[in-house]
Structure formats: structure tokens, C-alpha cells
């Protein structure tokens, strides 16, 4: 079977010289994809203006204190990249994204496979698994904050039974990052599940029937049929989870505001504080551009990888 389409659907161009009408028709068809894409592009292109604006501002001393901004060249960049706290935030950002995305992908695939089965547990849970995603992250974090409160939270009972009554969750510097990642996993695993489930639901049946006749084992079917066919959807889930967890703000801000100390202070929180506590608007931009560049590079790399794999697989097929 072919996973990807690299062939145009258009019929081959006619060999005979074209009439004027024919040329117009051909041009119209060549323009067709651009015309279809134009509305979507036009709508989203507006966003480039603030982005470009932010880049320009990063070379100024623009702040929210009402002082007249001056050109200061690369000062903001130098200040940012020579600050230890910036590199600390880079580490926190990376660990957070890695742990959160990794857990969500793994858990999402496993749970989606289980949910795809036709027994009553799966059927019942299929209607409700997405609910955590529907709670706004700010409120989701709040509920977890309340549940994990070591004095009044409900989780102190089960933890007490296993002798962890003193566990302090995000108020413990050692476990703060774990706790915020846990909330991220709680909220966003359903995102991976729904994508994988939709992918599983639209898989073709014939290869499975063939595999069944050949007597392929369940694990053989999974690794050689399901997983390769799910690749596009897994890839989308991975890219979206990675880029949003690298930018995560709401969960951490609602839970710890970057604390205790600086233990959960990722780049997004650091930049937010720079804007709204330091009023240093321009000073916040370099670290955000750094974050943007990292996400750009990672996604560029991942998509390149994916395209290559796809070409290879369609070449085989």
C-alpha cells in the first residue's frame, strides 16, 4: 500500500501545441493549488507583522516604563546569552518538553491501542477519555494544586497509606518539575490518544486480513503494519506536543510560577516575568527568539526526517 502521494493527479500535459484557451486553462490549473491556499495564507500572514515587529524591537531598549526606546544593537542578546539564569531556563525547558512529550507519546499510543478494542471497558472510556483536555490548563493546574496540597489535599490520604504522607509535590524542589510534567501529561495525553485513535480508525482493513491469513502474530502486525501506517499521525502528534510543551506557560505559571527558587522557571515563564515584572519588553525577546529558533530547527529536522522516510516507503511500495 502507499502511505504517501508524491504523484500529481493531473493528467499528463498534452504534446500538441496549445490553443490560447488551452494555455489559459493550463495556467489556471497551475495556479490552482496556490489559489486554494491563498485564503489560509492571507488570514495567517497578519501574524508575521507582530513577529517582525518583535524582532526589530529586540535591538532597542523598548520597555513598558514609558521611556523613549533607543537603538542598542545586540545588547539584549548579549545580556541574555551571558546570563546563567537563561541557560538554567534552557535546561528546564528542555527537560520539561522531553519528559512531557515522551510520556504523552508512549502513553497515548498504548492507551489508544487499548481503546481501539471492542470490549465494554474500551467502549465506555472512549467517550470520556478526552475530558481532561477540556479543562482549561489554568484550572487543571489549580485542581492539581488543591489535590496535591500536603495539608488539605485529597491525595495525602492514599499517599499516607503507603507511607508518603509527607510528600510535598511541587513545593519540594526535587519533585516540582515532576509535578508540573505530571499535570501536562494529565491534560495532553488525550490529545495524542485522539489523534492515534482517529488514525487507527481510518486504517485500511485489507492488509490486516492478509496478515491474518498469513498467521502473523499480534506484535508482528503492530510493528510491521500498524506502526508504519500510523506514522503520519504519530508524527503530527509528536510535532505539536513538542512545540507546545517547549512553550508551556499556563500550567507552570498556575502551579509554581517558576518556583520553588528557579526549579521550574522555563523560558516562557522567564520571558513573561521579564515583560510584566521587570517591564523589560525588549529584554524578553532574545530568549523567546532563541526558543522560536530551537522549535524551528527541531521541527525542520523532524519534518525532513519524515519526508525522507516517506519517500523511502513509497519507493518500496
Amino acid at each position: 500500500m502507499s502511505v504517501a502521494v508524491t504523484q500529481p493527479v493531473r493528467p499528463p500535459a498534452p504534446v500538441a501545441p496549445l490553443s490560447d484557451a488551452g494555455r489559459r486553462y493550463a495556467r489556471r490549473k497551475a495556479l490552482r493549488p496556490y489559489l486554494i491556499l491563498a485564503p489560509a495564507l492571507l488570514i495567517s500572514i497578519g501574524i508575521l507583522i507582530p513577529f517582525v515587529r518583535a524582532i526589530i524591537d529586540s535591538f532597542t531598549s523598548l520597555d513598558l516604563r514609558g521611556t523613549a526606546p533607543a537603538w542598542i544593537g545586540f545588547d539584549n542578546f548579549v545580556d541574555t546569552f551571558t546570563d546563567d539564569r537563561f541557560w538554567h531556563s534552557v535546561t528546564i525547558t528542555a527537560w520539561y518538553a522531553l519528559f512531557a512529550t515522551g510520556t504523552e507519546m508512549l502513553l497515548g499510543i498504548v492507551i489508544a491501542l487499548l481503546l481501539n478494542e471492542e470490549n465494554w471497558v474500551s467502549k465506555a472510556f472512549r467517550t470520556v477519555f478526552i475530558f481532561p483536555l477540556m479543562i482549561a490548563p489554568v484550572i487543571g493546574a489549580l485542581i492539581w494544586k488543591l489535590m496535591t496540597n500536603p495539608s488539605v489535599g485529597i491525595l495525602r490520604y492514599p499517599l499516607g497509606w503507603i507511607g508518603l504522607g509527607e510528600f510535598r509535590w511541587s513545593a519540594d524542589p526535587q519533585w516540582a518539575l515532576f509535578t508540573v510534567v505530571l499535570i501536562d501529561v494529565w491534560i495532553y495525553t488525550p490529545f495524542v490518544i485522539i489523534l492515534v485513535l482517529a488514525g487507527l480508525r481510518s486504517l485500511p482493513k485489507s492488509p490486516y486480513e492478509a496478515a491474518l491469513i498469513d498467521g502473523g502474530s499480534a506484535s508482528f502486525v503492530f510493528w510491521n503494519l500498524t506502526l508504519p501506517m500510523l506514522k503520519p499521525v504519530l508524527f503530527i502528534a509528536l510535532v505539536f506536543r513538542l512545540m507546545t510543551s517547549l512553550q508551556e506557560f499556563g500550567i507552570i505559571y498556575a502551579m509554581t510560577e517558576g518556583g520553588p527558587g528557579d526549579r521550574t522557571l522555563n523560558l516562557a515563564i522567564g520571558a513573561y516575568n521579564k515583560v510584566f515584572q521587570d517591564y523589560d519588553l525588549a529584554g524578553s525577546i532574545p530568549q523567546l527568539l532563541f526558543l522560536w529558533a530551537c522549535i524551528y530547527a527541531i521541527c525542520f529536522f523532524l519534518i525532513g526526517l519524515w519526508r525522507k522516510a516517506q519517500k523511502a516507503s513509497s519507493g518500496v511500495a
Partner: protein
Amino acid sequence: MTQSISLARLLGYVSKNVLLAIYVLFALFPLIWMVVLSLKPDSEMFNTTFIFHPTFENFRVVLTRADFLGALQNNLIICVCAVLLSMVVGVPAAYALARFQFKGREDIAFTFLSFRFAPEILVIIPLFLIYQKLGLLDSYLGLVWVYQLISLPLLIWILRGFFEDISPDIEAAAQLDGYTWWQVFFKISLPLVRPGLVAASLLCFIFCWNSFTFTLLLGGSHTQTSTVAMNKFLASDTVHFGWAAAAALISALPEVILALLIQKHLVRGLSFGAVKG
């Protein structure tokens, strides 16, 4: 199917369901707890667990504040419009990116994705100033537009994958039968990607619905959404977790209804799978 179930299979069955049950507990317990909190009076908030005197007082407080229902309505208008707009411009775009070969195809696809690369805080202050000049602050249009940043890349990239999964043979056959490309698109391809479309639009709706920073700073008294407004119930004189939980549950209701409504479309995709590949 063999008639006797082997021990290994039984074990597999049990462990699978135990795993699922643990995840179900993890996923649903906080929500159940939220429901419990929303029914607790302040006097029993912290000194009781599951046994208490339930009350609907928290819901009454939330619902009798006129501004919360207004905020719910704002969120509904903005998010429905945002997702519809994304669908109108995004579905054809996803199709074009999947089906047609043209110069710059991958670059354009990547450009759409890249709208999600910029952290919200990077663009929000410049965006605020631009909106102010255009008069878009505190307007439905302004928020519907900025939500395209959230929903459009997601919709296009999810759907592109689904469109690519459709064998071109099916479309080619339809074209041989005399269908134009847009007839092929509407009559053949679109129904085939329905599970993907349903999943993608639901996700877009949820992410728009729960968006916080954009609506906090670009919205205002006319457009404050329930996602922002429910935070007002948490604390004023003393903390009211019951109010906040009730507000959060009411605010999640439209999402839940939407998810349940389209649930069967998500499942129905199965039968279409047969014609592919």
C-alpha cells in the same frame, strides 16, 4: 477464535485492562474530584472527603452572576466562528498540500506550521498595539482572527496527513468518471477523511476554548471569555474552591456536548477505511 482461552491470553487480557483502568483513574479522578468540590459547601471544603452535605449553592452563585453566562456566550461565539473559519480556509488548503504537486509546497506547509513556533508572549504585545490601531481590541473579529494561530496549523497538518492517506487511484477513478476536482474533493475525499476532520476540529475547538493569554490581553469587557471569567470565582474575600469548580465545570459543558455529539462520527470512520489502501 479458539474455544479455550490460554493462560497467557488471560494474563494479557487482565494486564491490558489493569493498565487501562489505572490510566482511567489517573485521567478521571481529578475531574470527579472537581465535581465533588463543586457540590461542597464552604464549611465542609477541607474537613470532608466524599461524605458531606451536597449543595447546588455553588452553581447558583456562578449562574446568577450575569457576567459568567455572558462570558460563556462570548466564548461560544468566538470559538465556533474561529473553528468554522479555520475549516473553510484550512480544509481546502490541507487538500491542496496533500494532493497537488507544486513549487514551494513543502515550504508553504512548513510556513503554516511555523505560525505555532512563536511563543504567545513574543507576539502578544506587538499584536496588542496593532489591534489597538485597527480597533480590533475587545472585538469578536480580533479574537477569531488571532485564534487562527491556534487552530489553523493544527487543522491543516492533521488533515493533510489524512488526505495523503487516501489512495490517488480512488480519486483518479472518480475523475475518469467525469467528476471535476472539486466534485472529487467534496464527494470522495472529504467523506473519507471524516474521522480526521472530526478529531481535528474538536481539538481546534478545545484549544481555542481554553486559550487564556490571548483573550486575557486582547479581549475586554465585551469579549471576556469564560476561560478568563471562571478564575474570578476562585477568590475575592476568602477562597471559594466550590465556586471555581462549578464555574470550570459549566465552562467545560459546551466542549463535552460537542465531543459527545461527534463521538459517533469518530467511530464511523471505521467503515470507510475499507475502501482505502
